[in-house]
């Protein structure tokens, strides 16, 4: 049963990290332009990239 003392806080901590990450995305306008973000990844701008 002692393992609970370790596992329960650990799983809670993980969930809190996820909640914090979601909060960050909300604060940083990650949901303003879903279509644009999906399309933007297809645009090639190789000239900016030396490799």
């Amino acid at each position, binding site marked *: 049963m002692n393992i609970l003392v370790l596992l329960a806080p650990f*799983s809670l901590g993980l*969930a809190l990290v996820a909640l914090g990450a*979601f*909060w960050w995305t909300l604060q940083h306008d990650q949901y*303003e332009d*879903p*279509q*644009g973000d999906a*399309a933007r990844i297809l645009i090639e701008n190789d000239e900016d990239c030396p490799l």
Partner: protein
Amino acid sequence: MALVELSLPRADLSAFVKPGSRDEGLLELLVSGAHCAGCMARVEGDIGRLSGVISARLNLSTGRLAVTLSRGGDPALVLETLERIGYPATLYDPEAAEIAQDREGRAITMALAVAAFGAGNAMMFSVPIWAGLFGQELGPATRTLMQWASAVIGAPCAVFSGMVFFRSAWRSLRAGKANMDVPISIGVLLTLGVSFQETLLHGRDTYFDAAVTLLFLLLIGRWLDHSLRRKARGAAADLLAMQASTAILLDGQGHERRVPLREVMSGDLILVRPGERIPVDARVVSGTSELDNGLLTGETAAVTVETGEVCRAGALNLSGLLTLVALARSEDSTLAEIARLVEAGSQSKSAYVRLADRAAGIYVPVVHTAAALTFLLGWGSGLSPREALLRAATVLIITCPCALGLAVPAVQVAASSRLFRRGILVKSGVALERLAEVSRVFFDKTGVLTEGRPRLLAADPADIRRAAPLARASSHPLAKALARAAGAGPAVENAREVAGQGLEATIDGHLYRMGRADYVGAITGPSSETELWFGEVGADPVCFRFADELRSDAAATVLALRRRGCEVEILSGDLEGPTAAAARRAGVTDWRSQLTPQDKAMAVESAAAQGVRVLMVGDGLNDIAALSTAHASMAPGTALDASQTAADLIFSGDRLGAVVEAMDIARAAKQRALENFAFAALYNLIAGPAAMLGLINPFIAALAMSGSSLVVTLNALRLLRGGGR
């Protein structure tokens, strides 16, 4: 579309640049036609390379392009470039662009996330407790430990995510009313309090997980409702922001300057090119032209104006360049009388009680009485006050209004997304509820039953071929209609336009004219149809007749509406002849013509006074008062922007059948919502008494709540199926 295509001269557009940090300025545009990565790369690349442009970023979801300009940057160059590469743009009023920030939406989303976190993790500790309820081995000490863990996670999450409801409940209590959020808040807070008490006293049943799960489910409904309203508001704001259009001001030295409409003062000199709308009420200083008052009065024939005559805001300048002196500011121009009627109309609409609130009006007193009775009767019949209070709290939480809170938003989101796919924009969920109750439909004629643009009546194909090159060179609507009938082909290049009269050109050494009868040299009596004359100077001219044709499915739509139990009537501002003809062809027996905007609003009001709920379908300025007074209203996408703002629903495309379609879906949505209410009532009839008798434990509460919400949501989703493309 009532918008004028932008063909701006190199005018001063600095009024539209919002000053930013340092020397930069921000220009916001609404770009049409950009739908893919290629478009985005093209727009951002081409605009970004212009001199004076620091950065350009296109939001593909909303179509807004934000351009950061340095001090020397020229907004007109940006517009021209967009036009050239095939993505025509509209200027965006910087003030209207401000409202994009959606604080409330973020607060609800975060509350939803926290509630989800709380529900999931509190349940982790609830599962062992539930196992204990079913005879599994769970000592009292472990149970209390689990309950504390559940409390530490569940209670703060419930308080945080419940703030959305607590605040709203507090606001409504201070206003002396009780909305749906009051029982929710009381239920959640009482449940948390009783659960803490049970935990401290080592009791068996705690409901921390139930409280936070309840909030999670309710917040889903709240979030759906908010995103629907935001989407609709965004569309309405786009309309308003574009309506901001502009006027060309002439200063003392004759320089042209393009300014936002609200900056035009009475007494200013303004210039209106052919194809543009008269921005404010004004008097003609110089120039002759014809005005299309179609959207103002519903009249189909163009009116000629000359120096000294007054033009009204909203009229479309057809043929000549006009210099005007403004007689009123924009706000005063849009006819103070109509504005007053609109206000009165929206007040009568705000008295409408939403379906969910009507249900809540029955639900709240019943549930609260039941909870109070449980406490008093339980105490009276020998339970301890502690047990009696626990039972009362169970009643409140088990009969939670999740089904109510989720039932209507889910149905409305499903219905409006289906309508959206069919090209019909719904401004609010309430609009759908009102549309479902309609039993009489009033149609405007010009632009609604008819296409709102002239079409050539039968004519000799040889004549059409002869006249076509000249017609293609003109921007006059009748000439354009003739050119449309003739199809593609060459246009004359040396055409000379005589404002208000017509145009002439030399073809193979002969001088031809097209335009008004006396200009071309014909002697005629008055005629009911709109006419365009064409001929060689000196020879007998031919006459082309035009009429505003009915939409192809107008008659079918009228029939379909009748079959659905709706009376149909035409309210037109046009003359008796054309109205009667249109009514006959559409199969409508009730029609009224030559109505003023006030008459139309009165017609709607008197129907309402008889208890008839009216749907008004209109597009012009003369319909706005009626649109905002009617129980429900629709406008075509070609309507004047102000009418689109006043209407509840906007349909695009040529089909009038959208009215029938919207009505069907609205009625189906109401049906689904009522089914959901019936289900919620049935559920509460079983769960409520069970809770009052103390038969409910935390496990059953959790199952019942999520189960009922799931059923309601799935029933709402049925709307998405069937009938669609």
